[in-house]
């Protein structure tokens, strides 16, 4: 055997040149089967969301697992964003909104009256559709959360800011202008700043509501890469109307759709929740198949 070839191939997996032992690792990376083994962060059972009398989403049950990226997809009005906003109680701000069923977060019912929604949001951060940096300096944007939590010490804040900006792959681009306004950044950078801001309070989960819909493909790719990078530290749930995005980044995908419910209004429902590879190659439900292939009945 020629040296060149054996070097190249053998270096990467010397024991496997002909060996019997194809490790599971290779196959595992294919479909993220290990996911089955990871810990559930959220457990939704039979969750419905009502706005006044109107049932926006009905009876969704699923398990969102640690250190995974879970994507919610579906047509407009299917309730994917509604469910996302239940996960850190952002829908508290809509007065008429009411959540039925239970949403457990690490085993604790998020809608328990004892639970403090502010605390919930410290643990479960959120990134929004439109990049929304505060009209403050880059530094102050990131330091906002830590300061709220009582960190006053300059050195400590500096450290948190640097860590968070590094964590969101923004440090190199902004380290020389931390004092300039967050709004002076490009759209994609702004969104990464928002991620840095969310990350700065060391949350457990980051919810993302169509974080790339306002961005161009390059900025989108950058955010997607970032998500994959940070998922080892955080559990990520992303709502996207871009199926390809869900396919590219997520480990599991939940497909929601609408059905005409009582009084002619459309109620969202969870159709299928499966590993992403399965959703896009061989979904269980015919409606999922029709949606992902672009046939819509």
């Amino acid at each position, binding site marked *: 055997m020629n040296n060149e070839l054996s070097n190249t191939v053998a270096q990467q997996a010397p024991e496997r040149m002909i060996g019997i032992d194809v490790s599971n690792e290779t196959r595992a990376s294919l479909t993220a089967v290990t996911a089955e*083994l990871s810990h559930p962060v959220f457990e939704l059972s039979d969750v419905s969301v009502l706005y006044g009398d109107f049932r926006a989403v009905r009876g969704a049950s699923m398990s969102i697992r640690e250190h995974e990226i879970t994507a919610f997809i579906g047509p407009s009005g299917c309730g994917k964003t509604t469910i996302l906003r239940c996960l850190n109680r952002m829908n508290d701000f809509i007065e008429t909104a009411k959540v039925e069923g239970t949403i457990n977060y690490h085993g604790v019912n998020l809608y328990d009256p004892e639970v403090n929604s502010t605390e919930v949001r410290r643990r479960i951060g959120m990134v929004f559709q439109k990049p929304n940096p505060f009209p403050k300096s880059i530094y102050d944007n990131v330091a906002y959360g830590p300061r709220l939590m009582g960190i006053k010490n300059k050195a400590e804040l500096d450290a948190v800011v640097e860590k968070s900006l590094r964590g969101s792959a923004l440090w190199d681009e902004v380290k020389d202008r931390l004092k300039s306004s967050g709004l002076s950044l490009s759209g994609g950078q702004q969104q990464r700043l928002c991620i840095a801001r969310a990350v700065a309070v060391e949350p457990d989960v980051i919810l993302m509501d169509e974080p790339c819909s306002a961005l161009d493909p390059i900025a989108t790719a950058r955010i997607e890469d970032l998500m994959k990078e940070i998922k080892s530290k955080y559990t990520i749930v992303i709502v996207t109307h871009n199926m*390809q995005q869900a396919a590219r980044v997520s480990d599991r995908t939940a497909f929601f759709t609408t059905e005409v419910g009582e009084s002619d209004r459309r109620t969202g429902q969870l159709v299928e929740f499966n590993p992403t590879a399965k959703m896009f*190659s061989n979904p269980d439900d015919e409606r999922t*198949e029709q949606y*992902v292939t672009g*046939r819509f009945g």
Partner: protein
Amino acid sequence: MNELRSEFHHELDEVRNEIARLGASVVELIPRVTAILLDQDLEGAEYVLQADDEIDARAIDIEDRALTLLALQAPVARDLRQVAAALKLSPEIERSADLCGNICKAARRIYGHALDPKVRGIIQRMSDQAHKEYKEVVEAYLAVDPVRAAALPDMDEYLDDLHRQLIAQIFESHAAGTIDLQVAVQLALVARFYERLGDHAVNISQRVRYIASGWLPEHESAARFRARDDQANAHGELGKG
């Protein structure tokens, strides 16, 4: 609501039809080349060998179209399986047509040598069986009927049987001196060609099942290996569980 992405789905159907047409060509070729072989029809052989070029071109065309669909339409789920199957099937059919061509070539090589009637009989039966299988699988493909497709491996067992019979018969005929070595070797190859045609039909049937259900045709050997491997790794898996 109407179906969306209709042009894409139309093109997908077109590709499918073209594959079916190509398959139908093979279905038609099989009895034809058998007749050429048995009737020593040199003209027919020439014609088929030229037709083979056309089938090659059409197969390439299908592959091209499938790749373009992949590049432009980013198909997923069943659509993707259709396209992936097209990529797999077009060489499968093209190879089948090649096999038919090979049979014609063999016919030319043994031109002038008389064939043992027994051998002729088995060849005819192999041809009929291969034709039957191929027709069945092309129909199953067009109908995306995994149930019909699932019958193919078992059908093919009969062809394998015939193959063994033919080989045995060739040895017998050779031993009896009714055919010489050249002819014997060519006939052995021809036997293999028919058998391969059946294999291709089986492969196509697996693709049909794949299109319908996403079931990936795992060769029995691969499955065997997996089984062994999983056993070996059982302890490790438990540790993780």
